[in-house]
């Protein structure tokens, strides 16, 4: 798009301002995780990796990371299976209630997290009579992870259409061979992109986790929440926050790359 010089400068400045507003605080967190001063005097006089070493040796942090990974892996795995199956059902078949199903499938991502969280807590404990555990956290996370995987897969299925599969059958491949050699390879990128996004989303989820986790189960975001008010933990909190930033950015970056291989589509 072309515009006058002034328009370009104005839009450029607005964009820079907006991006700065979002990213400067993040950069400050990351820099502060290397700040040698315990009270985080700004600008930092000395940089140190002391906090990182200390944090790495902190058993409660290591335990929280492990918990978060466990939850995210289970949630992503569930989402991958259900999201892909849903995508096939909704993109390939015409049936009564199709529109309603499509809406119901994507709704969880739009519902307020606190409502979902409350509903799950009530549902698990009083309705199903389950003890809260890591599994209840993972299942609750999976509900919105399913949406991400579904959206990615459905967009890819709609864009590819039935033509490649028809061509495969026409050339003599039966249904299973067609799935193995054509359908799945064409869908793989979208599934991977969806899985990476889902993993990142589950990893930093806090509201749903708080409501569905039993006491004593601490994911990384919950650990930060609990240690925020303790002054002597401040350097460690900074490091953990910096780690969370990195862990969230990498999957999203990778999913963009994967989805971009054949023009991205259907990302939230």
């Amino acid at each position, binding site marked *: 798009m072309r515009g006058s010089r002034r328009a370009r400068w104005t839009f450029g400045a607005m964009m820079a301002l907006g991006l700065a507003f979002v990213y400067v605080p993040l950069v400050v967190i990351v820099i502060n995780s290397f700040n040698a001063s315990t009270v985080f005097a700004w600008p930092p006089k000395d940089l140190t990796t002391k906090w990182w070493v200390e944090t790495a040796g902190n058993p409660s942090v290591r335990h929280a990371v492990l918990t978060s990974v466990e939850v995210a892996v289970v949630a992503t795995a569930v989402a991958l299976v259900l999201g892909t199956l849903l995508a096939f059902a909704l993109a390939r078949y015409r049936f009564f209630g199709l529109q309603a199903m499509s809406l119901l499938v994507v709704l969880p991502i739009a519902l307020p997290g606190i409502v979902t969280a409350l509903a799950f807590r009530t549902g698990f404990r009083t309705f199903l009579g389950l003890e809260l555990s890591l599994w209840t956290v993972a299942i609750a996370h999976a509900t919105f992870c399913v949406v991400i995987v579904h959206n990615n897969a459905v967009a890819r299925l709609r864009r590819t259409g039935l*033509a*490649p599969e*028809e061509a495969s059958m*026409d*050339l003599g*491949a*039966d249904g299973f061979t067609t799935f193995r*050699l054509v359908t799945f390879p064409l869908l793989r990128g979208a599934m991977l992109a969806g899985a990476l996004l889902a993993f990142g989303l589950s990893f930093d989820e806090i509201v749903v986790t708080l409501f569905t986790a039993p006491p004593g189960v601490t994911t990384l975001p919950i650990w930060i929440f609990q240690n925020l008010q303790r002054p002597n933990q401040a350097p460690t909190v900074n490091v953990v926050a910096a780690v969370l930033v990195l862990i969230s950015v990498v999957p999203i970056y990778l999913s963009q790359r994967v989805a971009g291989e*054949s023009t991205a589509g259907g990302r939230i």
Partner: protein
Amino acid sequence: MVGAHDQDGETFAVRLRGLRKEFGDVVAVDGVDLDVRDGEFLTLLGPSGSGKTTVLRMVAGFELPTAGTVELGGVDVTRRAPFERDVNTVFQDYALFPHMTVLDNVAYGLRVKRVGRRERTRRAEEALAGVRLAGFGPRTPSQLSGGQRQRVALARALVNRPRVLLLDEPLGALDLKLREQMQVELKAIQRQVGITFVFVTHDQEEALTMSDRIAVFAGGRIEQVGTPADVYERPATPFVAGFVGTSNLLAGEAARQVVGRDGTWSVRPEKIRIERDDDGADGAHGARGTVREVVYVGSATRFVVDLDVGSTLVALQQNLQTSSMDVQGLRGARVRLVWRPEHEFRVADQATDPAVAVPDPVP
């Protein structure tokens, strides 16, 4: 219409009997009978929505007929899956596998039939050379032009040596020059490999150029089956007369006055000579009228003439000596249209059939 060569003993590459397909309330194919001989280049010609592609998809096995049968080489395959039929398809949008190289695309059919890697690579490379794409094997489809993708799709189908090759408007996405070039190439390839081709198109010129026989479709039915010359010079219905060429119909009072007989009659535009009305020579066969439109088309000029007896004929004149600038002044002029009586032909009068639309004469 049943082919004339329906003697006992002859098996046809494709035989369709009473083929019908409904999509909900819509009847896409309404009772089609057709025989395709071995090694024949048969074209299904018709406007969009006339059912020709649906017929092709039922032969390929992508659609299950509502009624009727599909036979391939004398065997009823109506209920068989696409991968159980000895036919291959060249799709309109090519449908190449985007995640495979050109070579893997072409070798796909051999791969799923468990031909060894070395053997299938050799045959795929041979097939690529056959469509003048030797050396393109390692590329991906996205790196090819439209015409190249088209030829890959052709190689991918031909490498399997199917009994019948189905082509669904395969040249539709190409530009005019490339299309004309591919028409010649396709015909040459067909002659060379000797495989039966069933070719779908809405382009009458393409059909006339390439086919051994043409089946003209309208409203889900076959209007006429015949050689290009049959269909063009002796159209069986007004629809065929209009769709294959320009309709140029004389009916009712106009027919009685000009032809001297009842019925619906037609004359091809290039058979009509145009003369000034004052030229006298009243003995010649033809009609008087006024020029409504003069259209310059390069090699020729097209005249749309309103006849005094109440009909409209199109006459095509080669630009042998005159250029368009000289004839532009003829708009509104009084002229005589002259043709030889043997160039008139009668078209079956189907004006009562609402399914058959007669298009307006194209100026």
